[in-house]
């Protein structure tokens, strides 16, 4: 707007028709919009492309929802519900499959006294590299059946614990279900609340650590006694932490057993 002789003169540089919302648009505005709107569309679409194409890798997890997966083996409840099943590809031929409920309420799972004996479980497979997890409904009749005992099935022995030593490691406490494949990526600050809620609901935590060279380890996490944590683990979930504890091999997986007082944020 032009300041002329002490007053504002809007018309000084402006001879065209005025845009009035309830009338048709003047030609000059139509011409402008004919350029500005496509340009704006290009910018917003470009922004969508730029943001979406620079997102980090969602991780190696998968959630195979379009198939029912069957696992036969021995069910145990400590430290978390899991099934030891025969798998020739696993070390010593035994694979650990964690069992979690749909949603975030695994602590509501009723194992109906089925622990310690052969069972067949049906659910949805969640898998990240070598780690497997079966997602089942809460009602035990819908997923837990007696093992068929078909000919040729080997009875699976519950693996012995093998303490390896203690270590202090820097890493993250993840909720295993999201991390193994339900959320991709299931980590970081934006996932922290969900991870905490999942672990509160009974999903087992896993400790995830990596070396400089990119080697990673994912260990099932328990308290120092080898049991599930209480709520005092929740503040540390998804934050970068340092934890000191014992590492125990149980079959094909490692367990990291740490007291909450030996965990600190870094």
């Amino acid at each position, binding site marked *: 707007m032009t300041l002329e002789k002490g007053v504002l003169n809007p018309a000084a540089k402006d001879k065209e028709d005025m845009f009035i919302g309830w009338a048709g648009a003047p030609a000059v505005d139509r011409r402008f919009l004919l350029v500005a709107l496509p340009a704006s569309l290009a910018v917003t679409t470009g922004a969508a492309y730029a943001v979406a194409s620079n997102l980090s890798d969602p991780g190696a997890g998968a959630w195979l929802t379009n198939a029912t997966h069957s696992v036969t083996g021995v069910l145990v409840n400590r430290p978390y519900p899991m099934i030891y099943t025969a798998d020739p590809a696993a070390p010593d031929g035994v694979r650990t499959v964690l069992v979690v409920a749909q949603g975030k309420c695994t602590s509501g799972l009723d194992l109906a006294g089925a622990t310690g004996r052969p069972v067949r479980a049906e659910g949805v497979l969640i898998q990240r590299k070598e780690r497997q997890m079966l997602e089942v409904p809460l009602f035990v009749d819908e997923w837990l059946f007696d093992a068929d005992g078909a000919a040729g099935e080997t009875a699976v022995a519950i693996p012995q614990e093998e303490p*390896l030593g203690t270590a202090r490691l820097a890493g993250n406490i993840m909720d295993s279900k999201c991390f193994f494949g339900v959320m991709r990526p299931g980590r970081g600050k934006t996932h922290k609340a969900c991870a905490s809620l999942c672990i509160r609901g009974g999903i087992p935590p896993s400790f995830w650590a990596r070396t400089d060279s990119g080697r990673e*380890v994912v260990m099932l996490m328990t308290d120092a006694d080898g049991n599930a944590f209480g709520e005092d683990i929740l503040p540390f979930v998804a934050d970068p932490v340092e934890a000191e504890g014992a*590492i125990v091999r149980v079959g094909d997986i490692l367990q990291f057993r740490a007291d909450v007082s030996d965990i600190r944020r870094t």
Partner: protein
Amino acid sequence: MRRAHRRTHLLLWFLLAPLTAAAAIYALSLAPQDQSTTFPDFIEQGE
């Protein structure tokens, strides 16, 4: 726009812009970097 309102706008942005920028830059500077760690020898897994 009324004069008081013109002034509110200007004052608001004079305060809000640097304060927000400073807070945001500071918060971003505190973002944790991905941390790496050293495994003890007995962890022979390395996925």
